[in-house]
């Protein structure tokens, strides 16, 4: 067993995947160092914490990659059940931080179950697709079970409330589900009812401030000094003033002079964009593009449907995070609170991402069926 593992690692190890992930992770730590340098006290040490988490996540990824993913397929529903339980537990044991139930305190670590749901839900949907042996296109009732699988955690996360995470969790699961062929009429029904549902939600389900938050980014003249408008404004100011080559490492004025909020969570990218300019910012987007496309390539060469679904899921995870985070900080999308993988600080988030990378590596290394 040990010998076969060695043999595979040497022969099948996905170097491009490893290299692009290492590069992005390194840039993320470097940027976090600059982003938190303006902070005082414990926050300025966050980049060290991040390195610890990356080390722990890396080790986890190695383990995840080593175990044949059919094991994960077998335990996918169990993992799903466990994560649902932890989501429920958040409301019971959870630490209320600013009126939000998002974390469970374990020792000094704030554990965020919704991060891991991104993976467990993806695995559950992947397993469902994998086990599906229909040869005809899916009808509406075929979507009932996966719909329920997705809806349950989504509802729980929205209730925390954590719109950003819910959005990513939902989009990742739907991305995986979009692999299957769905009957045309069913597709139209879903799209139609989705539109009506969104309209109903907008007209009756949302409070004025929530609407304001979703639309304020469209108004480029908005100078809402407080709250979300302020964040979005200062963020685009940081990005825009980076110009072509940037203000230089540790010299981003928007960060150093505290005009950017939450530089270690939702807004690390503006720090990077101001300090490294268009060159650095588009480099990061290109690296992520490579990672996502490479993930899709792994998906298309996977040995079975589960492998494909998992690889698509992990790729989608990166894709949606990048789209929403970069879109949000350049005011192309509303401020929804989506982090940027490897750039944002967070133990649960780093672990989730690296387990995802481990899964990708896993699928990649087991392309040929033996």
């Amino acid at each position, binding site marked *: 067993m040990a010998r076969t593992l060695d043999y595979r690692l040497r022969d099948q190890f996905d170097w491009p995947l490893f290299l692009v992930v290492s590069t992005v992770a390194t840039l993320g730590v470097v940027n976090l160092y600059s982003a938190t340098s303006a902070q005082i006290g414990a926050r300025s040490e966050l980049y060290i914490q991040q390195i610890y988490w990356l080390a722990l996540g890396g080790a986890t990824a190695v383990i995840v990659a080593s175990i044949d993913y059919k094991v994960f397929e077998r335990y996918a529903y169990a993992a799903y059940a466990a994560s649902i339980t932890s989501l429920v537990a958040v409301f019971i044991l959870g630490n209320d931080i600013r009126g939000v139930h998002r974390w469970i305190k374990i020792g000094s670590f704030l554990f965020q179950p919704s991060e891991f749901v991104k993976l467990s839900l993806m695995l559950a949907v992947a397993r469902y697709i994998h086990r599906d042996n229909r040869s005809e296109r899916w009808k509406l009732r075929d979507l009932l079970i996966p719909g329920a699988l997705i809806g349950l955690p989504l509802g729980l996360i929205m209730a925390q409330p954590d719109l950003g995470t819910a959005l990513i969790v939902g989009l990742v699961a739907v991305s995986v589900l979009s692999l299957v062929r769905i009957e045309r009429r069913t597709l139209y029904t879903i799209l139609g009812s989705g539109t009506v549902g969104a309209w109903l939600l907008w007209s009756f389900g949302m409070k004025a401030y929530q609407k304001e938050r979703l639309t304020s980014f469209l108004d480029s003249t908005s100078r809402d000094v407080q709250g979300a408008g302020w964040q979005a404004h200062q963020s685009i100011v940081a990005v825009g003033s980076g110009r072509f080559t940037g203000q230089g490492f540790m010299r981003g004025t928007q960060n150093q002079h505290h005009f950017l909020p939450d530089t270690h969570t939702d807004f690390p990218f503006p720090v990077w964009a101001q300090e490294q300019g268009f060159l650095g910012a588009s480099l990061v987007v290109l690296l992520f593009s490579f990672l996502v496309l490479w993930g899709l390539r792994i998906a298309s060469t996977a040995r079975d*449907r589960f492998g494909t679904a998992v690889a698509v899921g992990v790729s989608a995870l990166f894709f949606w995070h990048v789209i929403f985070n970069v879109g949000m900080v350049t005011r192309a999308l509303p401020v929804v609170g989506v982090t940027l993988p490897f750039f944002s600080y967070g133990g649960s988030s780093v672990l989730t991402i690296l387990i995802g990378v481990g899964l990708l590596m896993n699928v990649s290394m087991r392309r040929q069926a033996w």
Partner: protein
Amino acid sequence: MELTPKAAVTEFRERIRWMSVVVVLGMVALVTRLFIVQIVQSTQWTRIAEDNVLRRVDLPTTRGIIRDARGRVIATNRPSYNVYVIPGRFRTENFGRLAEYLGLGRDERDRLENRIRGAEGPRRYHQILARADIGREALALIETHRADLPGVQVFAVPVRQYPFGELASHAIGFLNEVNADDLAEYQDRDYRPGERIGRSGLERAWESILRGRRGWVRQEHYIGSAAAAPRNSASESIGGARRLEPVPGRDLVLSLDMELMRSVDRAFRGRPSGSAVVVDVRTGRVLALYSHPSIDPNLLITGIPPALAREIDDNPYRPRIDKTIYESYYPGSTFKPFAALAGLEAEVIDERTQVSCNGRHELGRRVWKCQHNHGIVNLRRALVESCNIYFYTLAETISMDLIARMANEFGLGHRTGIGINQETPGFIPTRAWYVQNFGQFRTGFSLNMAIGQGNTRATVLQMAMAYAALANGGTLFVPQIVERVEGPDGDVIQTFSPTLRRHVNTSAANLTRVTTALAGVVADRAGTAHNAMLSEVTIAGKTGTAQVAHLGLPAGDPRRNWYENRDHAWFAGFAPADDPQIAIVVLVEHGGSGGHEAAPVVSAIVRDWFTRIRPGITAAAADAGAPARRP
């Protein structure tokens, strides 16, 4: 397994290709967005980013100083110390101490506390004005305890000061804060809320010269406590200018002589209301422009307390009114020289023409009276003793329009063009005007007009300019109050030469006939202003006792009624009589007789000027070779 795994994946391949397309499109969209924000719009965002961290702080300019003809400072600037609080850096437990040092009242204290506590978000790092213009003691206390009062800042701001107080305050004017209307009207002049603007007088008329141009300095700004000061200063990352030096305003040197103004003020002592103008007859430069009573402009600078404002508004002597140019009066007998000149020029009279005065003149059913029974009067006696009958007779023989034309020649009925404050043109009626307004012309209108009553109105400054023209041989000047503009180092930037209005269209002989008669007004024993004769210097002029329109007397205080029914006392003249240098006009509102009330004021001023003030100037000029500019 039922399905071969390979086949199953193949089924997904096409989907994955589509997904790749979506991914590429999404990422291209992001890079495009970055390109738009970071390259296309970069200038806009860079400017905001720079303004964030290198905040432009205004550098105030200093307003130009106003000096009198001999360099005495009339308007200057003193530092005012304003205290600001930055809520985000201020420790609330210090609030009691700060309020105590600043001497805040209970209300002020509560208001300030609410503002400090109410500041949220980035506003916590905006300055809040705690108190403007604190006293020396408060300043000393705050400076001493500066280290214990984080978030408290003191800034010195220049504030206007008028060392002569209310003297010449109508002419000098004052400043106060710009209001919304000013900001809207003068958008191109870049006023800021809180800035002060010339509100009246020279301060307003010469605003653009006096004001100067504000500068700025870019100061590093950050959000958060002092401990969170940036490691790297923004100055290193951002280029561009750091500082624009302010350009100080330019100084004005006036023709006014504040020593003469003081002398005028002394001469007016005991007279509650009136005005006086002294001009140099050879240049038209205004040496004194005095309206009494007036308000200390130092009080108007910071806004008048309501109680004082009420007191000013209720003052029956109307301190707000500039009685030299804004108020017009019946000129009364001071108008007679111009009527006489009209008669001489029309050759309907000469110095030998005689009129018999028995104290009354009948016209139709009305009887027009004279002060005395003057007997047989010629032109000289008519002016010296101010005989109305002579002028009634004259008015019956020549057209009113000829008198009006002569008055207009001397600038009456038109604004003098001094260029400060609102000026009244006065009024010289004509036949056409009476026809238009009264339906028909009656000779009685002419009679009233010839003695400066009826509808004839003139300002004190107009009379001064007209008498200056009488004295200097017929040259009418535009009154000039600003002699030159100087730079902050005393370098002369612009000198204004006298501005000629016109040469009056009269013969020199006729002018001399009138002016010699005017000398007799003071010199002759029978002259109406003989009591004002001085041993040191001769004065020529004309008294006037202008009747007040008895219309709609206010009911109530009989003493006030008595006062308000009294005639205005005039004296208009020049000195020395044989070699005129200055023209001087004094009006004592409701003073009564011109000879008794106005003429002594004139003689006191003239004596002071020729015996005390002017010799000082000529001596200094002889010493320095030029008029002394600075004290």
